[in-house]
């Protein structure tokens, strides 16, 4: 499929705040494309516009300006959401339904044909590893189980695009790893996954590409490896260097009882890169504020 899963062009969202209707810009001229069958991470500190962007993609909010498309269809059209599954952050479901009833309910809401509902429900319940607990009431589920049954309801109508808002928030490491495995399995099945998360270490190993938002603006976007590599530096891991240098190092290493294995580019962790970018933006913003303040006075 050549059409991007999500195409966002010059998206801006302003909220009116207070009685005077003061404009608060949540998303600022955002341009973004998420390719088909890609795992895409949307990163940013609180208030950076991630959730607003997700809500606009889902058609739950109207953009002030700009456009947003899902597989070529304007996202505000209800029809565009037929190919979308969504898991909100810290989901709450009807506590009196069993997990299976809940997934069935959403399957019916998405107009899954009656003849296929049982198979669809069983399939996603199995995919998220909830087969044993599926007939228990949702009210008895742990946080991790809630996330997994939430994931099942988002997948039951076999959407091509799956959007997960903080899917591992409040979930223990094992549960997080299980959710990461499900995301990888979705990619293997040809699905596109957009996820927002604060658990950057997990995103790093999971996402094909990421975008960093700060104060509604796109700060960086690209493949995780491209973003976190330090291009102007190399680290000597074990073997390598120029022929002479390598020989000298190797001789030294051999003399010391070691083996030079390979040379690779040193990496920043995604956490470190993210924090560096955010701190840099914060400093720039603070400087801008000071400058504006001094100009006014």
């Amino acid at each position: 499929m050549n059409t991007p899963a999500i195409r966002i062009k010059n998206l801006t969202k302003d909220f009116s705040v207070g009685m005077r209707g003061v404009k608060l810009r949540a998303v600022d001229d955002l341009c973004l494309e998420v390719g088909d069958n890609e795992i895409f991470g949307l990163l940013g500190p609180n208030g950076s516009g991630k959730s607003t962007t997700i809500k606009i993609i889902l058609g739950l909010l109207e953009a002030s300006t700009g456009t947003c498309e899902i597989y070529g269809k304007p996202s505000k059209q209800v029809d565009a959401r037929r190919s979308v599954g969504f898991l909100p952050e810290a989901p709450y479901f009807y506590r009196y339904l069993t997990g299976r009833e809940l997934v069935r309910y959403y399957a019916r809401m998405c107009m899954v044909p009656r003849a296929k509902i049982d198979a669809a429900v069983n399939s996603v319940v199995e995919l998220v590893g909830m087969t044993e607990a599926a007939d228990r009431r949702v009210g008895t589920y742990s946080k991790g189980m809630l996330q997994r049954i939430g994931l099942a309801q988002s997948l039951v109508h076999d959407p091509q695009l799956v959007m997960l808002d903080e899917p591992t928030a409040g979930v223990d490491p094992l549960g997080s790893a299980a959710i990461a495995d499900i995301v990888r399995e979705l990619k293997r099945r040809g699905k596109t996954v957009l996820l927002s998360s604060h658990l950057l270490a997990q995103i790093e190993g999971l996402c094909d590409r990421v975008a960093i938002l700060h104060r509604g603006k796109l700060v960086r976007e690209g493949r995780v490896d491209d973003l976190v590599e330090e291009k102007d530096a190399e680290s000597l891991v074990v073997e390598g260097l120029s022929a002479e240098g390598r020989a000298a190092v190797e001789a030294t290493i051999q003399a010391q009882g070691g083996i030079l294995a390979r040379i690779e580019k040193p990496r920043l962790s995604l956490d470190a890169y993210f924090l560096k970018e955010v701190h840099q933006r914060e400093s720039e913003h603070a400087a801008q504020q000071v400058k504006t303040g001094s100009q006014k006075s």
Partner: protein
Amino acid sequence: MSLLNSFTRIRLIAGTTFLEAVRQKFFNSLLIISIALVASSTFFQQFDFGTGELKFITDFGFGALFFFGSILSITATTQLFFNEIENRTALTMLAKPVYKLEFLAGKFLGAHLLMLSFSLVITLVLSGILYWREAALLARLGEDVLLDGPLVRYGDVFVFGFLQWIKFGILAAITLFVASFSNTNLYTIIVSFFVLIICQLQYIARDAYSGMEAGLERFLVMGLGLIFPNFQLFNIGDQLVFDVEQALPLTTVLRLAVYGLIYTCAFILLAQVNFRRREI
């Protein structure tokens, strides 16, 4: 097919809304209090009202139905709406291919189904009490009192219950409209109760403009009289149940039902206008 799908989604949302509502302690408490109040009218048998006792019980029952029904209609609709928003189940729901109007219609129908159960239970209890007291009166006064016709027209007790249910529907739609732009439960409940009072006293505006000369003032007052439905139209219990000579024609009941339906649809559509722009 699309319309059929729409109805299916509305039915599903209404079903879960109703289930959620009947599981609330508030509903069950209010239902028990209402039943207890209607049933307590049997204690009036110690007063010798004669056939007037039946009217007293009926007025008492209708009063309880209106009073507790209005409270339930406003509070349950508010709570059912805000529960979905605060718990973010609305987010999960509206992220599916579900129109916001379908969501609102489902919420309304769920609340309206709740009010149907409430009205039906109270009407059944009231009819039971009336039947029991009527039998006691007939045993005491003899069958001669039936020469002018039955003491109570039980069918009409249910017609009254039906009309109250229609009125609760308008009230639920008004509450949904207020909730569509309100941010808190409390604000919604208070404003909706104010609107209820205005609707109850709306005949004053109608009296006012009927005596006014044509002009802007009359137009404005008439406009106000049209914006708010006239709830006094539904208070026809006496005429329905006891006034044998001037029984209310079925066409009047149907016209009232249509009147209620028009206001209900109008307020749901107004709620949709607000809800479309609301951040969830």
